């Protein structure tokens, strides 16, 4: 266990070192921070003084060491735009993103397990085939497009006039296909409930939850098909295995076999993939938050790019790097703990 931990820790530190070097190289070479900090009328002499004062004229290695030492103490530089520590800016935007990811993960968990298991138990039924077709469609629709379609249907509303409206059945079909709209598609709403620090939650008020619906569904839509297909494939494989056949031969109740015996082993690979995908979801929050103007880290990152707010960009890279490294390490650990066949030694990891 200790050897495994040390190995994983070493790996994590190595990755963070690479990320910090990349982040710093960007910070060092990109954009002119002075130009984005001061107006056009500021004379060159004042700009040079500011450059010297910020230490932008020091050699690369000095600046990197200063950067790394600061980063270890939680100092990721000051955002040029917000004029406050980049870490504070990120922490202020973090809860919005985490709540979005949490809501989407909840949706994925609640939907993918029953659907995946059902599609594996009854692979030939019409319903599972429908689920599988919808899931390949879901993989093919980019997340921002799902978001736009959802906005059109459930925020703006859409009147269908495809069928003749003067006949009874035509009007009925049109009404059936038309959507009302009305769901909020912009930001987090103004009825957030304060929890602690910079954490205001969407989960404690009806308005907050209504604002959460469309972004969470969009974000979930990209991973849901993946999970359904994964759970179905693993479950199909487990159902072929000898211990399941033996359990069946013993005359155990089918429900008990499916949900107690088979599901346990099905979920093992799902944990690994799931953990990694939660990290991946951070990437998709950039797209979702852009469409819905959700004031989280992703939107902040994109705005930072447009403002060439380099310290904020690098700080974001570092934080996202930490999130990825921590989730990946945790997933490996949890997998080792729940799967007794994996030995948590250095060689097996």
């Amino acid at each position, binding site marked *: 266990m200790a050897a495994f931990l040390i190995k994983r820790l070493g790996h994590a530190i190595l990755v963070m070192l690479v990320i910090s070097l990349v982040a710093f190289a960007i910070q060092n070479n990109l954009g002119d921070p002075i130009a984005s900090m001061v107006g056009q009328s500021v004379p060159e002499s004042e700009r040079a003084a500011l450059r010297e004062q910020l230490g932008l004229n020091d050699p690369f290695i000095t600046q990197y060491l200063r950067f790394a030492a600061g980063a270890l103490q939680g100092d990721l530089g000051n955002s040029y735009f917000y004029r406050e520590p980049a870490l504070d800016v990120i922490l202020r935007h973090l809860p919005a993103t985490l709540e979005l990811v949490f809501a989407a993960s909840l949706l994925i968990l609640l939907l993918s397990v029953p659907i995946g298991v059902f599609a594996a138990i009854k692979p030939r039924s019409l319903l599972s085939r429908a689920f599988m077709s919808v899931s*390949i469609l879901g993989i093919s629709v980019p997340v*921002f497009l799902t978001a*736009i379609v959802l906005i059109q249907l459930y925020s703006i509303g859409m009147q269908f006039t495809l069928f003749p409206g003067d006949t009874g059945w035509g009007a009925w079909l049109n009404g059936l296909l038309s959507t009302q709209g009305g769901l909020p598609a912009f930001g987090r709403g103004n009825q957030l409930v304060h929890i602690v620090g910079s954490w205001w939650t969407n989960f404690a008020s009806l308005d907050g939850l209504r604002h959460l619906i469309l972004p969470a569904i969009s974000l979930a839509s990209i991973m849901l098909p993946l999970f359904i297909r994964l759970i179905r494939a693993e479950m199909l494989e487990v159902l072929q295995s000898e211990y399941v056949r033996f359990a069946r031969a013993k005359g155990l109740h089918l429900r008990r076999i499916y949900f107690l015996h088979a599901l346990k082993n099905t979920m093992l690979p799902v944990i690994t993939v799931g953990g990694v995908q939660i990290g*991946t979801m951070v990437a998709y929050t950039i797209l979702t938050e852009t469409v819905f103007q959700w004031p989280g880290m992703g939107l902040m990152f994109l705005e930072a*790019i447009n403002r060439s707010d380099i310290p904020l960009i690098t700080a974001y890279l570092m934080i996202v790097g930490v999130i990825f490294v921590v989730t990946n390490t945790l997933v490996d650990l949890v997998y080792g703990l729940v799967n007794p066949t994996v030995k948590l030694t250095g060689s097996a990891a």
Partner: protein
Amino acid sequence: MSESNPPPSATPDKALEQVAAGERVSRLKLLRESYLYYSFKRDIGVQLCLLIFALMVLAALFAPWIAPNDPYDLTQIDIMSSELPPFWVDGSDPRFPLGTDAQGRDMLSTILYGARVSLIIGFGAVALQALIGVVFGLLAGYLGGRVDALLMRLADVQLSFSTLMVAIIVGAIVQASFGRATYSSYAVALLVVIIGLAEWPQYARTVRATVLAEKGKEYVDAARVIGLPSRRIMFRHILPNAMSPIFVISTVQIANAIISEAALSFLGLGMPETQPSLGSLIRSGFDYIQSGSWWITLLPGAVLVVLVLVINLLGDWLRDVMNPRLYKN
């Protein structure tokens, strides 16, 4: 030869037997009698997908000749005919079957040109990532040892981030360092490089797994014993035998590359609006969705989805037919 031939469906590997017997058989005949062609002939869904895909590629390729207008030509654009709906909605104009966008450009033409840009970037990026991935995968698998450890660790680190994340970050960095104007003028090439660099580990892993399986076989030993150089063994002996998994993941990768390009363009890190891809069309149309002009954003979106969907379906079918269990892990 033809009189001795039973129908191909009966003996799919008849041609292979002839090859084994030393007869010369044309490649077309090999294909015609392969299991691939046999299962293609039986599957109407796949034929339909291939047909749609071929039509879309052809329409995109010949966009300058079949599009009713040239969306890049400012003299053909009339601001008075902006935001006209497609033909099935009231108030449409027969000159613009799919309506017009906010500048009065014909949607059909912009979509054809946009699909062209998306497909060029998709295929270009896959070609680049296949090149990098195949070379790295061959080196890692065949040479093993330190080269293997280094390349695969690199792939691991990059894959532990999502490829989309890598593409967004690299895109942001490149745009910040070149400036938006320069970025726009080289956008196609830059996007090919960005997406190609972000996704090579997929190829490298697949190729490496196949190489490891092939390396122990007798023909490789034989080639080594007669003293052929490693490079020749890798590229002329092992690579041809690793082609089917490469072929299979290529389809999925093209779909991924097209989606990545669309995502980057949607974020404003891709194609500029003066030379739009499907992604930048969706982006520019999104500004008008609240004013009720849904077709400006949803029509290019629908084309994108159909394109990616048929490629994914073809990829699924290819994987089922070729079914090498090698690349499953």
